[in-house]
């Protein structure tokens, strides 16, 4: 037995099924699935610029006859939704499975949407493993099923499946059956003339899937007391088993389509049927639509966030186990930019400039938190640039604060680039800051087109951000070291001075977690207590509660020197 995370197990399942092409864009909690797949023998795997590209690469590989594997997080599926819906018409050549990892509780995401709705909307079968063994086995089986029903299969996980390690009996690889490519425009060219008949094929397939799902082994009943019957899936199944060990449980392994007949039969065997799910009403609505009376729990389950066994027990009126009350004086501990983070001074100076800042997705979203508190919007990948354009359109005729879009190198490659093309095309104004820290930092320092590192270490090219930007006809481009306060300040001042033009500043310095270089730490010698250094939000700088004077934690300080540039009293010096 091996202890595998759900992500590793899903990768193992795809590998065992003979999948040989993998494509993804990293996103928590899905990232390690493609990393684990890439580390297995006899596979090709790559990071793509975004999830839409990744699914299209996988679909192309499938059309060509290979078994293919794609992964993304829930919001990544929004990006990939365009090929997804039509892949449900074309079907597959070689089997195609796609992991979509949801984040109920939003540990590392901007929303907690439920990907089940995509399965229902696109009419693509979806499996919900409840532990790593199931994650491996279901994913492996999904390939044979994908070919049998001529349709991509979605594997849905959540943070508690993807990032929970449970024992797995690893399956060995079997070679996939051959599906040599033959030109077949009626299947693969989705123009109206061909799409209309494929729509009929899709409907026939849905009927076949609905028949299959009544018999398939992934839906199973755990018999218990008649009094309470629960319908659930995925990680919630584990919580239900712990919270209500005597209940009868219908564990769904396939969450679209639902086995309506089996569910109705199950409902007949219990006094009251309940549906338990996280941050959604998808399952409840779908079970009710099958003509089943779904009962309300004694007190409602929370509509937002993750479930736990405790929350489920509470909803059924069971007492919580004895425990200590939460202490009221525990300070919150949100994440923060690392000591020496090259993003810090950009936000400090943008705040000084009183800019309207349209932010984006990455470590630098932390610039929104105090004390930097310098972000006005953050919605989705790439939105910084396009929303900044919208701000400029709305405010352009008025006397307004400078509008600045802030985006990382990887996010720029993901979808910021198409936003910038659009702004340039429409003669938009404003300033775009590309924070080029040479990596996709938040998800664990993956490669991207602008650092030239690929997932399996193959030779690549390091693309030139300023060259790409210049090719759009944008004339004002500056390259700045973000650890140089004066350079950051003057570059921002110059770029925002002319309200009618579009300018781009590339702030280039590697993420401190890449090389982990440590210079001699700094220390504070003759602090006056002015507190300016504290406004940088560096985890290495603190204030003595009694004297109000600042100090530097020399174990945390990496000697970047950012703070020394802000001390008007020259009280911050390199420790000798």
């Amino acid at each position, binding site marked *: 037995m091996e202890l595998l995370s759900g992500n590793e197990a899903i990768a193992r399942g795809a590998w065992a099924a003979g999948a040989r092409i993998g494509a993804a864009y990293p996103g928590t909690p899905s990232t390690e699935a493609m990393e684990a797949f890439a580390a297995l023998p006899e596979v090709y795997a790559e990071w793509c610029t975004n999830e839409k590209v990744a699914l299209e690469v996988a679909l192309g590989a499938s059309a060509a006859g290979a078994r293919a594997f794609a992964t993304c997080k829930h919001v990544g599926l929004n990006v990939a939704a365009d090929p997804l819906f039509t892949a449900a018409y074309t079907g597959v050549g070689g089997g195609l499975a796609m992991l979509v990892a949801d984040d109920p509780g939003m540990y590392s995401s901007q929303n907690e949407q439920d990907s089940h709705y995509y399965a229902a909307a696109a009419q693509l079968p979806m499996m919900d493993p409840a532990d790593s063994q199931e994650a491996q086995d279901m994913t492996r089986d999904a390939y044979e099923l994908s070919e049998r029903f001529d349709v991509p299969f979605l594997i849905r996980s959540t943070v508690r499946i993807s990032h929970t*390690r449970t024992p797995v009996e690893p399956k060995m690889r079997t070679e996939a059956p051959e599906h040599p490519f033959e030109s077949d425009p009626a299947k693969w060219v989705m123009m109206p003339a061909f799409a209309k008949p494929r729509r009929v094929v899709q409907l026939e397939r849905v009927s076949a899937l609905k028949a299959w799902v009544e018999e398939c082994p992934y839906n199973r009943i755990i018999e218990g007391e008649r009094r309470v019957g629960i319908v659930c899936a995925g990680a919630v199944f584990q919580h239900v088993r712990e919270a209500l060990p005597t209940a009868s449980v219908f564990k769904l392994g396939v969450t679209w389509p639902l086995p309506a007949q089996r569910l109705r039969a199950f409902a007949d065997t219990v006094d009251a049927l309940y549906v338990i799910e996280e941050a959604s009403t998808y399952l409840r609505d779908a079970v009710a639509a099958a003509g089943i009376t779904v009962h309300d729990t004694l007190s409602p389950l929370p509509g937002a966030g993750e479930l736990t066994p405790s929350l489920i027990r509470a909803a059924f009126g069971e007492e919580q186990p004895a425990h200590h009350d939460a202490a009221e004086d525990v*300070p919150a*501990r*949100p*994440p923060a*930019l690392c000591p020496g983070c090259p993003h810090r001074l950009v936000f400090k100076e943008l705040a000084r400039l009183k800019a309207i800042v349209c932010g984006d997705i990455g*470590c630098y979203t932390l610039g929104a938190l*105090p004390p930097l508190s310098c972000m006005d919007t953050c919605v989705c990948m790439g939105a910084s640039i396009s929303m900044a354009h919208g701000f400029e359109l709305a405010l352009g005729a008025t006397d307004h604060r400078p509008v600045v879009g802030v985006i990382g190198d990887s996010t720029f490659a993901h979808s910021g680039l198409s936003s910038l093309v659009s702004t340039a095309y429409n003669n938009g104004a404003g300033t775009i800051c590309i924070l080029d820290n040479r990596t996709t930092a938040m998800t664990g320092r993956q490669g991207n087109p602008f650092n030239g590192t690929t997932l399996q270490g193959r030779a690549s090219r390091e693309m030139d951000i300023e060259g790409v930007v210049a090719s759009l006809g944008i004339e004002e481009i500056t390259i700045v070291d973000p650890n140089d306060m004066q350079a950051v300040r003057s570059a921002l001042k110059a770029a925002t001075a002319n309200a009618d033009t579009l300018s781009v500043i590339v702030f280039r310095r590697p993420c401190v977690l890449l090389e982990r270089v440590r210079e001699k730490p700094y220390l504070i010698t003759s602090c006056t207590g002015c507190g300016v250094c504290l406004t940088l939000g560096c985890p290495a700088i603190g204030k003595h509660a009694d004297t109000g004077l600042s100090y530097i934690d020399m174990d945390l300080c990496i000697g970047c020197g950012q703070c020394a540039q802000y001390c008007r009293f020259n009280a911050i010096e390199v420790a000798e």
Partner: protein
Amino acid sequence: MSVKVLLCGVGGQGTILAAHVLAQTALRCGQQVKVSEIHGMAQRGGAVTTDVAFGENVESMVCGPGTADIVVSFELIEALRNLPLMRDQGRLIASDELIKPASVLTGRQAVPRDVVGRLQDVGAVIVPARSTAVEAGTAKASNMVMLGALSALLSFEMPAWEETVCAFVPERTREANIDAFRAGRAFLIEKGAAL
């Protein structure tokens, strides 16, 4: 029967590695295991928790209020934060390290008063993890000191622990990590707090 251990601390303290060693040791000893980790944004110095459940039969991978048999905190404020998750008569071991969150560093909030005293009032054993690790050769092995302390509360045999520790840490720091583990275990035994 299953045992739930909650490991908590601050992103970057090595809670996940410690959880992996615990889980692998339990697996080696023939138990069912689940380890639930939090990755991503929280790792940037935020509060992190890792849940490890093991035993003959393990269902949920997460701890709710009053369900953790043992809470192992790598940091004092996090020990206080996660105290509600400990069950009645549960065990709490906490490192004496205190890492101030941003709001405390900048003076907007204060360190909770008398953290150590309040933790000791509920039976916590406070472990000098960092100084013990430094003595063993590297401050980075603080997580192994805490794991060693935890080992004194569990019934897995030492060879199983040491084999897994060796499998998880780089070869050049193996000795320091094993020494740190043993010192943490000895500390708890000396305190009379062991199983």
